């Protein structure tokens, strides 16, 4: 059996065991840990700098007449995403609190999401790339609807309908991509399509790019299609929010980098102004909305929407530096937001409220908790030492040099200098870092410092698997933050 197919089957088999009644939590932990180990082994075996970008390839024809086959393969970027997915899955299962009602369905849903994301990131055939992503849709609906908090029903409906709509728009884009290929060569195999695009066999595909952008954009909560995300993350149980915000949402950006960047570079440039406006909307508009939040879960939800703007900027600039930065940020943001949602879930578990007005001084009874939260918040801002910093820096460097420089000399001999749109967007994005520092540090201060409410003086410290898992996530961010070269080398081999 091919190693990647095995990787996808591990969580599915775990889910099957859970459904027939084995110990749900233990099975899920073993299953997710097994996939993490397996991905680490694959990463170690991956030969960087080899001629073939995709390794561990296996193919199973499904509808040969339409070029649909279950082709699995991994290159540097997909391995990075697989690492992220398996790491966050282990953490999500570790911090999960076994619910009283229907625990088997709960853990099986987590395993289904895991299988979906692993499958999507390991697929080379666009048809299955799409299909695997959808595998996570219904488990998310069930997780929010059954075990969520707050107005969970509305949140689950809204997210599900948005995501279903977005994915069908995406499907139209993929069908369009299939139909513009010359008759007789049509396929869903991504390397083959990129080959056709390089050979100039594909006609202009502006409308397909727009379909892909809107479809993926809805899935990634691109402004103005973002309203489902904060509500869903605020209502979702912590493991679901971690998996969705940390991993599943990255699917859309991964898809844009993987599909749109190599196949439609001209269309990306042609519609760059549209995308720049939307992503600045993500950074500035959503950024200010984030500052005004009064509850921690909503604030984290909005912040995860806001950070997508940087990654979109890296994609829009479309050069090697910015795309590498965007890929790094996919990883960095995934881990930091997962750690934050895990901690947020722990606070909700202990206090029953996430309102800033009611919290305060929690660092006194729980110093280790406060320390972990501080690290995670700083990683989310992108301070030096964390991998997010490397990602943001590369994105900003890449996007500032993108586009045509608007420099020259006027008729009067005066030197003329104007920022182009990419540079304006980059400046806005740098201001966004200040915004995220404001809301993250304010949240940190309001929750962990200040006068301690007597109600919270007896709170227990974070302990057990949750403490280990969150600490591990922070260690990963620190290690890769000090040695981002480890990841950059991996990404380089996938020839962005």
């Amino acid at each position, binding site marked *: 059996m091919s190693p990647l197919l095995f990787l996808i089957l591990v969580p599915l088999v775990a889910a099957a065991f859970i459904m027939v009644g084995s110990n749900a939590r233990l099975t899920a932990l073993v299953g997710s840990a097994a996939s993490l180990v397996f991905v680490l082994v694959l990463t170690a075996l991956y030969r960087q700098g080899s001629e073939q970008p995709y390794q561990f390839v296996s193919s199973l*024809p*499904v*509808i*040969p*007449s339409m070029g649909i086959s279950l082709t699995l393969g991994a290159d540097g970027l997909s391995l990075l995403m697989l690492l992220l997915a398996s790491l966050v899955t282990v953490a999500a299962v570790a911090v999960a609190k076994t619910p009283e009602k*229907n625990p088997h*369905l709960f853990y099986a849903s987590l395993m289904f999401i895991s299988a979906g994301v692993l499958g999507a990131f390991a697929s080379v055939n666009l048809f299955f790339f*799409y*299909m*695997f992503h*959808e*595998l996570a*849709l*219904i488990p998310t*609906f*069930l997780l929010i*609807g*059954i075990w969520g908090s707050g107005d969970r*029903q509305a949140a689950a*409906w809204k997210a*599900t*309908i948005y995501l*279903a*709509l977005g994915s*069908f*728009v995406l*499907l*139209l884009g993929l*069908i*369009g991509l*299939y*139909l513009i290929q010359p008759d007789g060569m049509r396929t869903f195999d991504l390397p083959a399509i990129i080959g056709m695009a390089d050979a100039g066999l594909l006609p202009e595909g502006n409308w397909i790019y727009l379909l892909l952008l809107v479809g993926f954009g809805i899935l990634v909560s691109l402004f103005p299609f973002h309203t489902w995300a904060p509500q869903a993350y605020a209502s979702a149980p912590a493991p679901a929010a971690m998996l969705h915000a940390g991993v599943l949402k990255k699917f859309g950006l991964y898809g844009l980098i993987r599909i749109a960047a190599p196949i439609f570079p001209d269309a990306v440039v042609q519609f760059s102004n549209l995308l720049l406006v939307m992503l600045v909307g993500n950074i500035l508009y959503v950024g200010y909305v984030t500052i005004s939040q009064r509850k921690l879960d909503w604030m984290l939800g909005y912040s995860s929407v806001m950070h997508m703007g940087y990654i979109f900027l890296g994609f829009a600039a479309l050069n090697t530096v910015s795309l590498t930065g965007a890929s790094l940020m996919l990883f960095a943001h995934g881990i930091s937001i997962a750690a934050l949602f895990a901690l947020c879930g722990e606070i909700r578990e202990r206090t029953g409220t996430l309102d800033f007005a009611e919290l305060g001084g929690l660092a006194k009874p729980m110093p280790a908790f406060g320390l972990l939260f501080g690290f995670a918040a700083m990683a989310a801002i992108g301070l030096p030492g964390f991998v997010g910093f490397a990602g943001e820096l590369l994105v900003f460097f890449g996007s500032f040099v993108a586009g045509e420089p608007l420099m020259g000399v006027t008729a009067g001999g005066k030197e003329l200098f104007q920022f182009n749109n990419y540079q304006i967007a980059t400046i806005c994005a740098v201001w966004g870092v200040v915004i995220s520092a404001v809301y993250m540090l304010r949240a940190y201060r309001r929750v962990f410092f200040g006068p301690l409410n007597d109600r919270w003086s007896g709170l227990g410290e974070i302990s057990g698997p949750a403490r280990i898992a969150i600490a591990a996530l922070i260690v990963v961010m620190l290690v890769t933050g000090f040695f981002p070269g480890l990841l950059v080398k991996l990404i380089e081999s996938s020839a962005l």
Partner: protein
Amino acid sequence: MSFPVEFCVLSLGILMLLADSFFPSINKRTLAHTAIVWLAVFLAATFFLQPSPLWASPGGFYETDALGLFFKRFALVSTILTLVLAIEYAPVVERFIPGSRPGAGLGEFFTLPVFTCAGLMWMASAADFVMIFCALELVTISFYIQVAYMRRNMASLEAGTKYLILGALSTGFLVYGITWIFGMTGQTGLRGISTVLGMVPVASQTAILFGLGLVLVALGFKVAAAPFQFWVPDVYQGAPTPVTAFLSVASKAAGFVVLMRVVDAFLVAPALQAKLVPALGFLAGLTLVYGNLAALPQTNMKRLLAYSSIAHAGYLLVGVASVGSPAAGRAIVFYLLAYLVMTFLAFLVLIPVSKAAGGDEISDFNGLGRRAPGMAFAMLIAMLSLAGLPFTVGFLGKFFIFEAAMRQQHFVLVVLGVVTVACGFYYYLKVVRAMYWQPAPEDAPPVLASPLTRFTAAFLVTLILILGVYPKPILDFLP
């Protein structure tokens, strides 16, 4: 080697009737089981023997092509599934038809679908308007009886009356349309018409178009396309549940086969094609929007499935409007197959649940995820497939339809299709929500289903999932 499969089915029906009348003590369920076995035998026989009418008719009113053959099998499979449903539903029928001896009235309840099946199979092969009309009437008249079968139940009677009146009206449209077409072309055979069409003077094309329009209206009634869908919700809700399933799958499928054959015959004339394709596109768009929007507020499961059946007719019509693309025919046939599997699965779970709860509201499904996990899982799969979620056969059906429509550049229809798919997620997931989110009522009676029903449900679930991932065997097999 030829094999008159319709006559075999017809004889089976007559024998069942005779057995029912001459041996009143016979267990009616045994009768149904026997019928299932025999229909399965006929189904198997179609793979080895060439079905044919009893007499040869080259190029005549009976088409022995792959499409016809495929739909004969389709009719046989849906009749078998209907009988499985009918056996599960039998206690309800007995309650509404009090007789002198146990099981009174059940014999005909099991026999009528067999006669309908023969009509459906003739319809699948009909290539002449006279033949189409006769087969359609055999189907429709047997459905009139089945819909109104529970004669002590007001809803069933009302449904029967509505179906009778609107069915008769649509028959009138059909005959009137055929008359106009015959008057202008002098032909009733579809092949004859398409050869003659090229020679018809331009002046009489309007008359042909008028006739064709009337035929489309009649077929629109049969496949439940908007704006000819008014009868659907009431009839589906009032009819006995197995009949509803049969009506929504087999009758619709046969309507689509006839529609495909008729449209195909008239497409040869470019002037007609220029009018026909936009008309079909308009019907498709209207049906999509109406079916999906009207399904949103439904609280009754059978009504929900009725509107969903209108919505699915919309997707199928998008496929019909894309004829001309080589992929369209295959897309429609695959979609119908997917529709058969998932719709029957939904009805198969509905019957035991509504028997336990005494009604078929969506709220009767509350807490089914805990009360009957297996049944709830089957319903979950059915709903996800109807909504079109990947890894189910329903997704591939929509995928092929959208692909065919985009080939023909029907972008408006495709956009409508995508928006309405999102509506579909809402109303199908309402059932999922009831099953998994809502707590079960305290006094909820246990949901019991016979082993045959359980086995069939498990089989259909497997089929949905396997064909959703690996449709190749079926695709190789499609005409």
